């Protein structure tokens, strides 16, 4: 049996029936990694020995009939900007090439405590800044559906690894759409939770006011399982103080009758691929067919989201990345004349171009005279978007929109078009900037057979509703079942 192809709940079933061992599951996933990752290149660091040892121990425990939780023994991966104690965490940057954190991110710890098996650390754009992993210091991750194409970004490693069945699920971060876009491009499910729902402790900051950890999974049920494990307040992240956790797995009913769903008109006017538009509009019809009230809604302020997001993110990045100065840890230039020279050379050599661009943009946006013009203005836009969404959610249980205006493009295609890159965030930035939850699920394929993602946004802490809508859609369609079917060699 190809165990690596299973979903989490299918694997758990087999384990409980004693038809397979933990070691068999982990070995199967490892075999798949060895088979495909030379092409997909999802991993930066592989923790195969540790994974095998973990599974051996779990089998020993299971023999003693000790109760283990659902995620025990299930192979997963973690985006490489999430700290894992004792395992190198690079942020895909030369700056942290040799950084081994002495602590773990809370989200990871919560899975580790359930004895999930870490397979390794997954590729991302440098400090999660990028759309393609072309800014990764290590390599580019390729889309399992077409190796000539990007797998999204920054969370490409996480999405590609799940799509290629290298891991059962992954933890990734989303600051402006990273997790959702990569999941959509790779035809898997990705949830960006409400800001403050999952602890950011141990997540290497990029845009602190928007960074969120979420699951990427093969289907909605797995997504809910993983989210349940990582959600909830954490003393180490003061922003999680008001988190309200629900029973997400329990919420997965195949029933959306009477739910009110808004279809975001602004997304379908211009600048969207024909196939994507059709697929998402079809999906909306499907939802309607399943009993939801679907109605068009206009949210004019979302058009401003990418610009405001860009300013806020750059500002926070410029400050958050100040700590990489060659003094305490990470990369340090070998020869320098004085302190200024040490700073300049270390940061010039340690960071890639995209990061430098962001740091400069953010420094500019926060500097005297520009603060009011850019940063403060962006905060005002954020307030407007939040208010507009809040109002929309008085009427609607969720808003439907595409995750991205296109499907995965070919490497090198958009490198010269900074604006196109910037606009790739346009459908994902609103949820990030407003701090509301959003889920992406597969809802079709384009003319090239590439997956298309539908996005559902909800009000803060409405993850259970979003998961229920996504689950119902999934139960009544089969887009999520199709896996990449290309020749690996």
């Amino acid at each position, binding site marked *: 049996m190809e165990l690596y192809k299973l979903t989490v709940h299918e694997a758990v079933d087999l384990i409980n029936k004693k038809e397979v061992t933990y070691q068999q599951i982990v070995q199967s996933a490892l075999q798949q990694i060895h088979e495909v990752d030379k092409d997909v290149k999802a991993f930066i660091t592989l923790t195969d020995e540790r994974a095998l040892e973990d599974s051996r121990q779990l089998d020993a425990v299971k023999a003693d009939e000790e109760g283990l939780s659902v995620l025990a023994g299930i192979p997963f991966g973690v985006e490489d900007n999430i700290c894992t104690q004792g395992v190198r*965490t690079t942020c895909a940057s030369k700056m*942290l090439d040799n950084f081994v954190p002495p602590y773990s991110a809370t989200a990871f710890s919560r899975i580790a405590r359930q004895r999930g098996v870490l397979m390794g650390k997954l590729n991302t754009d440098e400090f999660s800044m990028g759309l393609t992993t072309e800014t990764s210091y290590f390599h580019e991750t390729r889309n399992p559906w077409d190796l000539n194409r990007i797998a999204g970004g920054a969370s490409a490693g996480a999405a590609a690894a799940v799509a290629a069945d290298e891991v059962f699920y992954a933890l990734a971060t989303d600051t402006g759409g990273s997790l959702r876009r990569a999941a959509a491009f790779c035809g898997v499910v990705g949830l960006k939770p409400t800001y403050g729902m999952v602890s950011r402790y*141990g997540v290497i900051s990029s845009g602190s006011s928007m960074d969120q950890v979420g699951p990427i999974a093969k289907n909605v049920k797995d997504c809910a399982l993983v989210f349940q494990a990582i959600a909830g307040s954490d003393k180490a992240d*003061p922003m999680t103080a008001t988190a309200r956790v629900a029973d997400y797995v329990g919420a997965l009913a195949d029933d959306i009758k009477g739910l009110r769903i808004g279809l975001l008109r602004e997304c379908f006017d211009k600048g969207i691929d024909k196939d994507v538009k059709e697929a998402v509009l079809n999906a909306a019809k499907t939802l309607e067919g399943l009993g939801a009230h679907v109605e068009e809604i206009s949210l004019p302020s979302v058009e401003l989201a990418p610009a405001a997001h860009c300013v806020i993110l750059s500002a926070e990045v*410029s*400050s958050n990345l100040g*700590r990489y100065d060659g003094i*305490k840890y990470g990369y340090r230039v070998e020869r320098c004349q004085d302190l200024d020279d040490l700073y300049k050379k270390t940061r010039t050599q340690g960071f890639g171009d995209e990061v430098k661009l962001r740091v400069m943009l953010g420094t500019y946006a926060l500097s005297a005279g520009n603060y009011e013009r850019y940063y403060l203005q962006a905060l005002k836009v954020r307030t407007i978007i939040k208010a507009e969404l809040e109002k929309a959610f008085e009427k609607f249980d969720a808003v439907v929109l595409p995750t991205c205006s296109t499907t995965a493009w070919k490497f090198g295609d958009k490198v010269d078009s900074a604006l196109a890159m910037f606009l790739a965030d346009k459908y994902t930035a609103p949820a990030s900037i407003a701090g509301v939850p959003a889920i992406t699920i597969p809802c079709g394929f384009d003319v090239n057979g590439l997956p298309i993602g539908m996005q559902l946004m909800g009000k803060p802490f409405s993850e259970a509703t979003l998961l229920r809508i996504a689950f119902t859609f999934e139960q009544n369609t089969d887009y999520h079942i199709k896996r990449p079917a290309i020749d690996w060699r």
Partner: protein
Amino acid sequence: MKYEVVIGLEIHAELSTQSKVFCGCSTKFGAAPNTQCCPICIGMPGVLPLINKKALEYTIKAGLALNCSIARYTKMDRKNYFYPDLPRACQISQYDMPVCQNGYLDIVVNGSTRRIGINRIHLEEDAGKLLHDQYADSTLVDLNRSGVPLIEIVTEPDLRSAEEAKVFLETLRTILRYIDVSDCKMEEGSLRCDVNISIRPEGQKEFGVRTEMKNLNSFRAVYRAIEYEANRQIAIMEEGGTVLRETRRWDEGAGKSFSMRAKEHAQDYRYFPEPDLPPIEIDDEWVEEIRRQIPELPDQKRRRYVEEYGLPEYDAGILTSSKDLADYFENCVKLYENPKAISNWLMGDFLRLVNEKNIEISDVPVTAENLVKLLKLIDSKVISGPIAKTVFEEMFNTGKDPEAIVEEKGLKQITDRDELVKVIKRVLEENPKSVEDYKKGKKKALGFLVGQTMKATRGKANPQLVNEILLEELEK
């Protein structure tokens, strides 16, 4: 032309919380380098700050003691700059919404009261320390101090002389110690002060161009630096020059200040709201609870000492200059009805020995009970005043009970008239010259004879009785 000096102070005081402001590390002074650090206070990637509620409480307490209004809604901000002692390359501080605003502090200079405005007090974190002298060619970083909570107190430009600045600092220090939020040790760096100075022709309303003086490590340095800087600016004006807006560094050894950087090179700190910490809400109830914890402050205490105990202003000022001393005084007053006698002892031998031995008042081994016992021994004429000084010194050294010391060393006063008459007769016999002098009208000779009598009794004679008997004998 006559000039007026205009001074504003920026004071940093380390708060005496047990742990740092954004993590649980100890704030204890003097530990081995980098032994009181964790991933948060050394700026490791991914970790997040957590605000220490105690530090916020202390900030509010300082604000209340300095008559400030306390914000009900505030936030922390980031101040961005690169320096090796600042591990995150940004300091968590407060920019436009400080915890405390619009306060004042009354100071008494040359007998008159001056009200000095407090512009703001905000909470922030301290940076680490650079050690330049440990190895020949390198600078080392010690991050023990990184994340220690600080309050920055900014005054209005209301001070008009070096003397006023010094008195302000002394008064402020006394208050911060009274309310127990900072130990204010300038030598350990837990109190630091920057001075803004400008001058203007007397009568002019507009302020002159100000300079900022840094690296002032003692009250004396603050005083000297202001004198120096005011004179420097006046000299420039007299010569028809212009004072530059700049930051200057005080060199205590040279007794001079030097230009550090001009205003146009001032850093742009790119403040913005700290995205890792939620805004802070402070409710009335909490503020009132903190207000209730504030003890009677030195100014009120001083006035009370004058009214209630009939002490001179001078005594009241000294006794209230430290909370420990005032507490000591009040403990004594509870047990003894003569406040002035207590005051005399405290201001005299007590403080003399505290200073000589350079110890804290809280470490003085003499209890209030024992000091009062000593005073009662004098009152009941068991010992003489001069002997009491000896006994007190012994108490101060050993912490022993005064009665035990008197017993042990045989220091009881001689009050037996017959015994003293015998001694005095002998003294008169041994000093015929002095007797003759006295009889010729040299009254000073009496003092000498008293001294000789005291010497003969090793100080134990009752001085009044000695006087009485001597006069009797000399008149015979």
